[in-house]
C-alpha cells in the first residue's frame, strides 16, 4: 500500500538558500534531489551523532495512521559551528522528544519515509536551518 501523508507537499527544488551539506560528506545518490517534501510531526528521537545528525518524527496521515519519518543532516560539528547557514546554534539539546517540528528535504528514491534535510522548523516556528519560513 502506498502511503498518503496528509501534510506532504512537493516543491520544485530551486530557490533554496542553504545547502545543508549531507551530500558534501557522503554523496546523495540515495535521495532524489529534484524533489522536496515537507512533513510535520512530533520528535520521537534526535541523534546528534557522526557522521550525520538524524531527526525522527511521528507523522499522522489522513487515515490517522502514524508513520515515523527520519531526516538526515550534516555532521554535528558543522551544525555547531554555524557553518551550514543555521539560524540557531545547534547542540545535542536543540530538539527534545515531543517537540512539534517541520522537516523539508529531498525524499529517498526508494520511497522510504526518509529525507535529506534542507529545512528544519522548530516548535516556535523558527527555522533552525534552511531559511526563515
Amino acid at each position, binding site marked *: 500500500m502506498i502511503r498518503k501523508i496528509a501534510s506532504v507537499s512537493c516543491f520544485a527544488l530551486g530557490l533554496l538558500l542553504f545547502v545543508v*551539506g549531507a551530500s*558534501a*560528506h557522503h*554523496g546523495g545518490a540515495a535521495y532524489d534531489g529534484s524533489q522536496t517534501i515537507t512533513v510535520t510531526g512530533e520528535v520521537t528521537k534526535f541523534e546528534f551523532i*557522526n557522521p550525520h545528525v538524524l531527526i525522527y518524527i511521528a507523522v499522522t496521515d489522513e487515515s490517522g495512521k502514524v508513520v515515523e519519518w*527520519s531526516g538526515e543532516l550534516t555532521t554535528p*560539528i558543522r551544525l555547531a559551528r554555524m557553518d551550514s547557514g543555521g539560524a540557531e546554534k545547534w547542540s545535542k539539546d536543540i530538539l527534545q522528544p515531543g517537540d512539534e517540528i517541520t522537516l523539508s528535504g529531498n525524499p*529517498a528514491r*526508494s520511497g*522510504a519515509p526518509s529525507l535529506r534535510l534542507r529545512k528544519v522548523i522548530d516548535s516556535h516556528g523558527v527555522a533552525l536551518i534552511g531559511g526563515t519560513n
Partner: protein
Amino acid sequence: MLQRETMLIGALVTALMLSSSLFAQTDEHGDDLSGVWTNFAIEASRPFQNSALRGDPPPMTAWAQERYAQAKPTFGSKSVAVVETNDPVYDCFRPGTPRIYLHPFPMEIIQTPGRVLMLFEYDHTVRQIYTDGREHRTDLAPMWMGDATGHWEGETLVVETVNFNDKTWIDREGVPHSDQLRVFERIRLDEDDNLLIDITIEDPVAFTESWTGQRRYRRVDWNIEEFACMDNVVFAEYEQEILNYDPNATQ
C-alpha cells in the same frame, strides 16, 4: 705544494659545511601558516569542491581508465549510493594525498622547527612535512598518505610527497593513481591572508601528463574536533535500511 692543496680542500669543505648550515637556517623561514583552516572554495571550483581537484577527469592512461571504470564512487558523474560504493575510504582506510583536502572538514597547521604538521579533523589524519632537509625514506613500505618533505622558497612552503601505495583514489570521484604518484604542493598565504595550495600531480603510470589543481582555505576560530571514520560504518546500517525499503510492504 701538497700542503697548499690540503689547505685548499680544507677551505672548500669548510665553505660547503657553512653553506649547508646557512641553507638549514633559511629552511625554517617563510610565512607563519599556523592556524585552523577551512575550505574556502575558489569560485571556478565550487561545483566540484568536495569531490575533485578539477571539473573533468584528468588525462588517464589505459591502465588508469580500466581502474576508473571499476570504481564506484559516491560523487561525480558515476556516483552510486553509499551502500554500493567500493571507495576505500568507506572501509576507513586513509584518504591519501591530495584527496584528504576534499573532505569537508577543517585542518590545523602547526609549524615547528624542522617539521610542519597538518592535523585534519577528518578521522584525525596527520601529515608530517619534514623541513629539516632530510631525504625521502626509501626503507618503509608504501604509505596511504605518502612521505612528505618540504622546504621554503621565500614565503612559500614547497612540498613533495612520494612513496604512496596504489590503494587510494586521487579524489572522491574514483580517479585512481599508481605507486609512482608524486604530489607537489606550493603552500602560501595570499594578500587576504587566505591559504592557497597549488597542487601538481605526476604519475606516469596513471596519467598521460601532469595536471594541477588548487585549494583555498580561510582562517577560522575553531578547534579541531573528533570525527571517527568508524562512525560511517555504523551509519551504513541506516543507509541500507533506506535503500532496501519496500514501499509495497505493509507495516
